[in-house]
């Protein structure tokens, strides 16, 4: 034995290889066990009732045990969603007109709860030209304040591609408009739609600015913010929202995601769908089929 070996032997070895590997194994086992427990906890949470937006435990219990007194309707039984099949939309704007009449929205092209956009790619162009019913040419073509029409402006030019996209409130899972409301005048109902309490709205329009989808507008006549609520007064009575009811081509599909056989559940299941601006983290509840990346 050389002096060098002695020196090595006399050193205190912090951990033998065997010991280290053993520890590593134990550590792995522990981590695995923890992960499993975590997963178990997670699945237990999934079975728990869905928590409303920014609800504490007491409020959650209240919304389950003592739901709002709407005749023959319990908001715990439903999770509403809308599908939009843009491949069917013909841009007739019947949805917009029906919505305005159903909800007494101001009858001009600039105030709306739902609207339709037209995306057009001229020949050889990679950028879409976007117009909606509020475009001055379209307003002129409609001829009256209370009718809405797209004009046929691309009749004589070569168009690579063109399509219509109906827009409406996405009733987000994490609504930015609700977060910014200073008075609690807008809120997310347990069954999905984001509603406005018009008596508490002070007309500050923070919500109009906060919405990443431009779904809100300001109603100057009433002095309150205006937004699509998927015709909450209709869906709680078992009817379709007005825009879905009148759509002559079946572009808009409405239903309950809790029911796997509802039209919207089947639509989401059987088609490739996407939401608008997923990067905003709002997790919208309107599912689009057949839109380009330009559609935001």
């Amino acid at each position: 034995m050389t002096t060098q070996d002695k020196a090595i032997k006399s050193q205190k070895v912090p951990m033998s290889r065997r010991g280290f590997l053993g520890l590593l194994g134990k550590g792995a086992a522990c981590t695995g066990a923890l992960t499993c427990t975590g997963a178990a906890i997670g699945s237990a949470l999934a079975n728990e009732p869905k928590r409303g937006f920014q609800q504490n435990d007491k409020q959650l219990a209240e919304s389950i045990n003592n739901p709002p007194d709407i005749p023959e309707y319990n908001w715990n039984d439903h999770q509403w969603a809308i599908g939009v099949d843009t491949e069917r939309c013909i841009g007739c704007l019947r949805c917009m007109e029906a919505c305005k009449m159903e909800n007494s929205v101001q009858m001009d092209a600039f105030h709306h709860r739902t609207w339709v956009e037209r995306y057009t790619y001229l020949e050889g162009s990679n950028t879409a030209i976007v117009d909606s019913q509020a475009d001055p040419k379209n307003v002129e073509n409609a001829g009256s304040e209370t009718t809405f029409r797209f004009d046929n402006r691309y009749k004589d030019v070569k168009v690579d591609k063109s399509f219509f996209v109906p827009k409406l409130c996405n009733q987000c899972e994490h609504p930015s408009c609700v977060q910014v409301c200073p008075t609690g005048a807008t809120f997310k109902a347990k069954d999905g739609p984001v509603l406005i309490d018009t008596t508490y709205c002070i007309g500050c329009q923070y919500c109009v600015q906060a919405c990443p989808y431009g779904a809100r507008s300001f109603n100057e006549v009433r002095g309150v913010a205006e937004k699509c609520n998927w015709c909450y007064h209709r869906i709680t009575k078992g009817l379709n929202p007005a825009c879905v009811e009148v759509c002559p081509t079946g572009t808009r599909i409405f239903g309950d995601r809790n029911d796997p056989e509802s039209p919207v559940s089947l639509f989401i299941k059987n088609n490739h769908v996407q939401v608008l601006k997923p990067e905003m983290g709002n997790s919208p509840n309107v599912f689009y089929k057949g839109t380009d990346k330009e559609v935001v």
Partner: protein
Amino acid sequence: MPKHIVRLLALIVVVAIIVFSAKQFLIPDSFYRYGHYRGDAVVEVASKIPKLQGSDSCQKCHQKEYDVWMAGIHRKATRNNEVQGVVYKYGPGCEVCHTGPAGNHPSKDPMPLSVEDKITSITHPEIKVHPANVSGRKLMLTSQEMRGVCLNCHEKMHGRPLEQKQIEIASHSGEEVCTNCHNPHSPRIVYANLSTGKRGDAKAGKVIAESCVGCHGDTGMSAASAFPNLAGQHFDFLVDSLKSFKSGKRVNETMSPMVEDLNEADIRNVAAYFSKFSCGVTHGDKEKAALGKAKADNCKACHSTGGLYGTGAAGVSGNPSWPNLAGQNAEYLFNTLKAYQDGSRVHPVMTSIAKTLSEDDIDHLAAYYASMKCK
């Protein structure tokens, strides 16, 4: 403790009490019930009264129009009928074209106020118009407005999907009003709706008919029982038949060369000529007719006025595109069904039906329809 500190503390306590009691007083009971909002607002929003009533609500008073719509392409709009086997949407309903929701039509009274309407009206007294009353509501359309309504969906435009029926206005109709040819409730074209100019001129048809009367008779009652009677036959059916001879879809060694030189207008004229006569009754064998009646259930859906329900006058078709059978020559009917059976004449529906019939059945059915009154 110094006096001024005590006073200050007392002041703070008083202010705190006032603030908290004001908060208790001002915040409604339901405010934090479900979250940071007034819980009662949910019920208020939900209490609004729906204005769109759906097409079924129109049925009570407008049964006739409703029936036409139900049977027509505007309700079926087949391409939209199904998504993965689930019927979820029909074509345009009444409220799509008739400018807006039915609301409480036909009542002249304003719609009743719901809680939300009341609250908005009270808090904002400057709202003069009752929120439940639709301004500019006009349920009836003039024919010029109708044109705009039709074109709103059917004008050829970039961005509309190919499945949507679209027209080039200039080449389709020019300035013509859509309803001259189309019934807006069921717009697939039916020649019976055309004005006389479009339907054909019976007088002009008489000249062409001179070459027909040899077989089909002066008044459309044929000279021999092997030839069909044309008197009182539907205009549409006659036009369709002549066109299918012309296109070669139907072949007959006599008829095919006869129609070769006829143009569209001639066909309409001659069809108009024969369809205006009233038909006579040919007499089928009574015993056979009684047997045939029992077999006629399968025919009723198309060849009776009651349509699918199998009611109404037997042998007179509800749809003008299908032939009347009542009073037709028994021999001709017999030959026709045989022709469908052996494939010398082809029709998507008739071929398969004829193949289910025995020779006796055909004989009896022919006798039955020959003995029916055609009016």
